């Protein structure tokens, strides 16, 4: 019998396992690839400051508690806004849909929360939302965001995946130095709406505290 023969021939056994398990992947995943990768025409890639915030979202692993996927149910669109569309995620590397909502969905949080609210909230969630079990992220007010890496990411996705960043995004250090003031200007816009004097001072000195990048990212989620 075939299987008995197979059980004596480890090589063919392994080959058969490999075939059987790659089958579904090929059939399910491959046909979807071209289609799902298309961005919506209204979608622009994130700014460097927002990308730095995205990287903090990954570093501090907000995905542990927050989803970014509004399912097409009335109960969700009432709470969070329009259901999510595939094309909205076309520039997200990695995708940040999450799989657990210990806290609320954040895919459109930029629509219904503001800079000052986030500032208060990230500093001490239960003071804003009584009963909140979200940890405070005080360290974001003192740690500095890594905007250079965010710039490197923008250049990488531009060159590798044709993400539409402008011609000024080049891989050289000089190009980065030239772009830096733009990031600081974006940071200043956020800091202006904040209360913390330390943050304002840091930004005035050409530094970007993590919280500024984080809020820029949260505001960009719309």
């Amino acid at each position, binding site marked *: 019998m075939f299987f008995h023969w197979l059980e004596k021939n480890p090589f063919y056994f392994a080959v058969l396992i490999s075939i059987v398990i790659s089958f579904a992947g090929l059939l399910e995943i491959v046909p979807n690839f071209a289609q799902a990768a298309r961005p919506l025409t209204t979608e622009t890639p994130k700014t460097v400051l927002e990308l730095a915030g995205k990287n903090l979202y990954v570093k501090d692993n907000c995905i*542990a508690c927050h989803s970014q996927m509004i399912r097409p*149910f009335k109960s969700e669109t009432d709470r969070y806004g329009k259901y999510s569309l*595939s094309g909205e995620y076309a520039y997200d590397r990695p995708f940040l849909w999450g*799989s*657990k909502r210990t806290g609320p969905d954040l895919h459109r949080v930029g629509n219904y929360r503001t800079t000052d609210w986030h500032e208060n909230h990230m500093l001490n969630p239960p003071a804003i939302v009584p009963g909140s079990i979200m940890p405070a992220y005080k360290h974001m007010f003192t740690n500095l965001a890594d905007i250079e890496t965010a710039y*490197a*990411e923008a250049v990488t996705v531009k060159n*590798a995946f044709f993400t539409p960043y402008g011609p000024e995004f080049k891989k050289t250090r000089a190009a980065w130095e030239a772009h830096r003031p733009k990031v600081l200007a974006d940071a200043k816009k956020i800091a202006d709406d904040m209360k913390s004097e330390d943050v304002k001072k840091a930004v005035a000195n050409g530094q970007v505290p993590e919280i500024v990048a984080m809020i820029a990212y949260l505001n960009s989620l719309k």
Partner: protein
Amino acid sequence: MQSNAALEYDYTVAKMFTYVTILFGFLGMLVGTILALQLAFPELNYLIGEYGTFSRLRPVHTNTVIFGFTVSGVFATWYYFAQRVLKVSMAESRFLMILGKAHFWVYFIGALIATITLVFGISAGKEYAQYEWWIDIVIVIIWLMWGVSIFGIIGIRREKVLYVSIWYYLACFLGIAMLYLFNNMSIPTYFMTDGLGSINHSVSMYAGTNDALVQWWYGHNAVAFGFTVPIVGMIYYFLPKESGQAIYSYKLSLLSFWGLMFVYLWAGSHHLLWSTVPDWMQTMGSAFSIVLILPSWGSAINMLLTMKGEWNQLAENPLIKFMVIASTFYMLSTIEGPIQAIKSVNAIAHFTDWIPGHVHDGVLGWVVFMTMAALFHMAPRMWKREIYSKKLMGIQFWMQTTAVVLYFTSMWVAGITQGMMWRAVDEYGNLVYSFIDTVTVLHPYYVIRGVSGVLYLTGFILFAYNMYKTITAGRELTEEPQFKTPMA
């Protein structure tokens, strides 16, 4: 054909992996217990500054229990039983011995460094695939070393027909190799620019919905080929070996194995129900998940039937108890998963605590129980000493069984409640609960889960202690026990 007795099996590598299985098991579950308590008492987020928040620690927990505890348990058992069912000793090949030891050290040091990177927030973001690109490379090397070691020992085997357990371990090796590689494809940004920014950082090769598809094709099957397949392989060796009973049905083994191989991979999209992946793919994920109940249950039923007529063993031998209850929890999680994969049920279950509930039915009741039973079975044979205390094993059994029951009942109630509250509308048709209402209502259940964590962890410490005493102070054995593990 040579008789068993004539062969001196070499357990050096199996022993080394046994130690780290226990070490990582303890660390991973300690962090798990802290996580559980943090959700009940958020002040516990601030014990070690930014490094101790729930969000930073969660991947430390998941990765330590998966790539630390479970995977080293798989390695430990492999290096133990493969020699025996293939009738060949590692000592017969210098190459295999050196490779085995190297495999261990690269693995152990790699795992320690990898854990530290997570504490520092060096993460690629995808669940169960957080390790950054250069750690991925180390992991691939570790996995390949195992592969060479597997095919090496199979190559020089004396028993020509591969036993069922070997099928499952082979599938584990191949499945993870393929999935891990594809899902972790990423580009380091440092090298794509003139050395700008951090050398650790990389971007995924896939974006958005595509990334999600690849991730859950991986994530689901990492569970399949990490938490299920090798553990089934384990029970197929250790239960008949401990009980002295023959496997109930070859046909059932065969159909369950190939059924599992075929169906498992289709089901990955049940993690993406109601998301932006195409409708047809979601439906396939749901449909195949239901079919999956039977190949999963096939193995469990085969094990239960193997124990037919052996009620006395179940009552007398705590190791048999561990394995029978492991099968039971395996059945529970492999019907719970499929039912959660039905679209309408998933509309409630997804994103809620019912999912971690399902997860821990599987991992605590099945993976950890089975792994501990395997190590208990191996210890007297590897160290030639009797198990230190049967009584302790009994206490541990009841503590941990109670803990699993508390974990899953609390998360079950919590999840269903939360899922339904998110949807609830008032008499006018508008949402009735603010989000925070759905958080505060869970407090009592989070407390119960915290208690369950403490209980389970204590049970695991008893296990570690019992193993330690067995290795160092168990009564010495003159002869290797054939079936039932001797215990004082």
